[in-house]
């Protein structure tokens, strides 16, 4: 089974084709690189795979499963509930004055204690006389709106980045997007959120379950920071971190969710040769933990040094795929990319 399969993915933005019919498959435990000149559609491809801008054509499979959440019985139940809730809510709102009049004001106002039984009976009779226009029409219209809204929300959520992240795909960003006001540990803990179970009330009431979970994840976050070599800065604000460390923190945050697959978008951008050496070692260690790595990179030494296979894009289309050696000697790749990049 493949870690990820991309089937004929295409992305268009208002008539511009950014990615056209790209397909590839990544083996588990592999380091897979996507390279190409600027504007070749690499980041767009990443965004399509992680659900930020879902693909216009084609689809992506993870571990042999569709990446988009399927329609389940639970979804249908939710749609039905939305229909009933909103429908009844709208019908009740439209008629609230009439019903209140019939059940409370007409007969029982100021009565103490309130005669619940007969008031409810009156309410029932009033509901029965609402008729088609007053009762059924708002019920159906409201219900359709409710179900429609629930459907819209569901179809947005089924391929949203958070859903995809929760299926085990983590990523970093080309222009690092850390939470600058949070500390390093907290940044990592955000990445672990999908694995946490303590809910609203256990946090509100500080239940033992909440404390236990907090201690456990805190320790794990510290271990991850150690793994990327940032443990001694754990309590500093992420915004104050030097550039080279920021990439490492982003990788730690991405690893925090124990993903099966991690996508690195130009991890070496702006790094000096020493830092790149450290990064290569780090990426190898990530792979050795059992995480499949897909990376976009311009830094040829890094790509050629650690990739198992390379996929080359140009103007949104695939022009080659193969081992580093094969790519190095492929004339189309040299023409499209390598020659230019290494001279420049």
């Amino acid at each position, binding site marked *: 089974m493949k870690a990820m399969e991309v089937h004929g993915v295409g992305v268009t*933005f208002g008539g511009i084709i950014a990615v056209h019919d790209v397909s590839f498959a990544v083996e588990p435990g592999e380091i897979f690189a996507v390279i190409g000149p600027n504007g070749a559609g690499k*980041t767009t491809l990443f965004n399509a795979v992680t659900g*930020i*801008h879902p693909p216009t054509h084609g689809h992506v499979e993870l571990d042999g499963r569709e990446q988009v959440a399927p329609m389940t019985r639970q979804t249908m139940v939710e749609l039905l509930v939305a229909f009933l809730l909103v429908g009844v809510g709208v019908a009740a709102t439209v008629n609230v004055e009439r019903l209140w009049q019939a059940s409370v004001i007409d007969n029982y106002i100021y009565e103490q204690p309130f005669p619940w039984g007969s008031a409810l009976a009156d309410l029932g009779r009033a509901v029965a006389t609402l008729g088609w226009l007053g009762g059924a029409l708002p019920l159906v219209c409201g219900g359709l*709106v409710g179900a*429609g*809204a629930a459907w*819209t929300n569901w179809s947005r959520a089924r391929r949203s980045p958070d859903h995809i992240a929760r299926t085990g795909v983590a990523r970093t960003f*080309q222009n690092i997007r850390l939470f600058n006001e949070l500390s390093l540990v907290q940044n990592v803990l955000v990445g672990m959120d999908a694995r946490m179970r303590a809910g609203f009330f256990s946090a509100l009431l500080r239940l033992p379950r909440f404390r236990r979970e907090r201690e456990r994840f805190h320790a794990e976050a510290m271990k991850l920071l150690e793994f990327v070599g940032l443990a001694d800065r754990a309590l500093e604000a992420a915004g104050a971190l030097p550039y080279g460390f920021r990439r490492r923190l982003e990788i730690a945050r991405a690893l925090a969710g124990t993903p099966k697959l991690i996508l690195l978008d130009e991890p070496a951008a702006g790094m000096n040769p020493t830092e790149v050496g450290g990064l290569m070692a780090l990426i190898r260690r990530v792979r050795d933990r059992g995480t499949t790595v897909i990376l976009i990179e311009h830094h040829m030494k890094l790509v050629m040094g650690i990739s198992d296979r390379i996929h080359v894009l140009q103007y949104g289309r695939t022009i080659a795929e193969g081992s580093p050696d094969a790519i190095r000697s492929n004339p189309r790749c040299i023409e499209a990319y390598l020659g230019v990049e290494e001279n420049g």
Partner: protein
Amino acid sequence: MFDFEVLVQQLITGLSNGMIIALIAIGYTMVYGIIELINFAHGDVFMLGAFFALTLMGVLGMESWGPGGQAVGVAAMLVGSALFCGALNWSLDRVAYRALRRSSKLALLVSAIGCSFICMNLGLFWGGLPMDVFAGGVAAAAPKDFPALVPQVNLLGESFIRITPADALVFAVTIPLMVALTLMVNRTNLGRAMRAVAQDPVAASLMGIPVDRVIGATFFIGGALGGFASVVYSLYNNTIGFQMGTRAGLDAFTAAVLGGIGSLPGAVLGGLTIGCVRAMSDQYLETRWTNTIVFCILVLILIFRPSGILGSSRKEKV
């Protein structure tokens, strides 16, 4: 029995009010299109424009002018209010927004809300001026009568359906303005600069476009349209008050979102729709529920088509 003439009459009212809403909505949509800010103060700038026009009327004593003179007076109010609102909106940008361009969107929005409140308070004080048109300044907060300078006759003669000169004025002012604005945005250098800044302010400034001046010009034009709208609104509805900016702003913003924010034809379409919905709701449902219905429409659009009827969805750059 269904009365067809009432429907047509309400449609006329709805379209007239809709054109006014559209003119205000354009002010929102232009500013949002260029710096992604909901200019909360826009409704209150519109309100101050109406106060300015009323002051102008009082100072020049327009009510006692002859019919020909009153036509000149209306023109003077239109130009005066437009310049006033344009300048006011421009200065708001200069004083309260420009320094926050790099801050968070929340900060910018909060600043705009602050400006809206300041303008509202200025309106309250303004209404307390000891002038005849402001009822001598007593009860500053009360709504003010705005004298109808346009004659209250039916242009269609004896017909049951009424089209008044006020209706005609609304269309005579708003349509040329919208045409002129469309030409300006599509044909002139300033228009091109605006579109460039809207797409990418950094790239635009690298190409030598004076971004701050273009944004300032956008605020001026948006405000000026609000100024025109305020005079037309006042002559059409004959009552103004210092709190009218909030309601007008909500309607206009709903119109801008309905049409697709950032789109000029969208703002017009949205304004006309909201105007007609309001008129129909006033006639066939109940006036007291009209605002609630407009609000429900806003929520429904935002759920089902957040980019509006004519808008295109903008995607965050990653």
